[in-house]
């Protein structure tokens, strides 16, 4: 299962100030740990809301509102996407993030993988697997 870990914004992230070299190094080590454990799918930081806009919908009307936005607590400063076996595992990884303060939000990502029952019997699936593993490259089959 996949989780998106949302980094909440704060006054510092909103100020547009860049993190210190030390903070960047700590975060780099942490991200490397996630990658080496094979659980990191993606990550990115977001620039301050001063550079962003909001597009508001009202029937046919679209209103573009320029940043910055008030209420820093509602703003995001970045995210990770982790692939793990349980919510607890996601929480355990998130707990290790090098933050002194603030809050991270852990949200499960929707997957379309409530797989319907296959038409293949286990024996046939096994036969298929034997062909794939032994002979390689049956790519045109799916």
């Amino acid at each position, binding site marked *: 299962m996949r989780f998106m870990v949302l980094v909440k914004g704060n006054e510092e992230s909103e100020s547009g100030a860049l993190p210190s070299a030390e903070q960047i190094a700590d975060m780099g080590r942490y991200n490397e740990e996630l*990658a*080496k*454990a*094979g*659980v990191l*799918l*993606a990550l990115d930081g977001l620039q301050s809301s001063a550079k962003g806009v909001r597009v508001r919908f009202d029937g046919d009307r679209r209103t573009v509102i320029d940043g910055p936005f008030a209420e820093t607590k509602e703003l995001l400063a970045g995210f990770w*996407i982790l*692939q793990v*076996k*349980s919510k*607890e*595992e996601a*929480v*355990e*990884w998130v*707990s290790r993030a090098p933050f002194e303060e603030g809050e991270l939000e852990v949200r499960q990502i929707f*997957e*379309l*993988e409530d*797989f*319907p*029952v*296959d*038409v*293949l019997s*286990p*024996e*046939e*699936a*096994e*036969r*298929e*697997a034997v*062909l*794939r*593993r032994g*002979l*390689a*490259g*049956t*790519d*045109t*089959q*799916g």
Partner: protein
Amino acid sequence: MTAHQTSEDPAAAARRTVEAVWRIESAKVIAVLARLVRDVGLAEELAQDALVAALEQWPVEGVPRNPAAWLTTTAKRRAVDLIRRQRVLDRKLAELGQRLETAAPEPDPAEIEDDLLRLVFTTCHPALPLEARVALTLRLLGGLTTREIARAYLVAETTVAQRIVRAKRTLAEAAVPFEVPGGRELAERLAAVLEVIYLIFNEGYSATAGDDWMRPALCEEALRLGRVLAGLAPAEPEVHGLVALLELQASRIRARTGPDGEPVLLLEQDRGRWDHLLIGRGLVALERAEKLAAGKPGPYAVQAAIAACHARAGTAEQTDWVRIALLYGQLAALTASPVVELNRAVALGMAYGPAVGLELADQLAGEPALRAYHLLPVVRGDLLARLGRSAEAAAEFERAAGLTGNAKEREVLLGRAAEERGR
């Protein structure tokens, strides 16, 4: 430590936290211990003992700041106790006790990575039968329980347990060294490791439409193991080649089955359902593999390159079949597999027209390895139909129908035969 504000039973929450920590740390703990005791079976038992201790203590005292170090230290203490209790005679054990007591308490991360790499090479050792390698790897590196492995492979839990016990005994009896092989042996042994990971992936992939949740999870586990291996052996091109192949194949999982659970072939898949995050990761891994291989990509990288051609095509029609045919030629040279040649015939037919594809498919007709392989007459039937040779095409579809064991597929093939007969 992590304080959990929740309404549920705190003991249950603590237990699940311990399980999560175990999933993250168990391979490292086992790897470090295996280097000290030189026996992966014993290392796992000691680590399990430490896990039991954690289950008793952490819910009360909280999860320690460095759970891996806590588990390793606890397991080492158990090892020393064990040796003291047996207090024996056996010089080897005495030596071992000394090594454990003098060993540095917290090895640095680079050392743990070396240990992990040794562990991978041990669990995938050729002294073990393939199915034992798979089970042991999932157990010791994946941290999967015996029950989870049994569910994934649709076998009894006792079968998996026996397989693992026997595998550990085999490793101990054969005195398989806990090491990363050197020189030419490294390439062979690495191929064995990659094969195990690919096998695990395919077990999940071929059954992703099954109703058992563990089988799709096997794809994820194989991907994770592949990524871990890429971190441990970053200079090995085929490791990145395999990771690229797995990421790209996994990107199609959601599109591979239709609403009624029927398999959907690659060219008919709804490309909107492909996972573009995984495609992007796959392409990056492929680029890395190709760079490291310096013009001589291995079979996994070539297969990944084929998958990348499909991934890059916005629609099935835009597929670069000329390049795919070329890549299948490269793959055939590397694997000498007639099935690869058959795929090349398909690609040639797409790139240069059915007559060119048929020429190669006809050459394969006499291939003994393909005699009972129903896809050979399917491919020939397709190409003949496209050439307007309906009667011959129908005969091929009928032949294929007689060879497939799948009732649904037989029905489809007989339908196509009838269609060609009617032309």
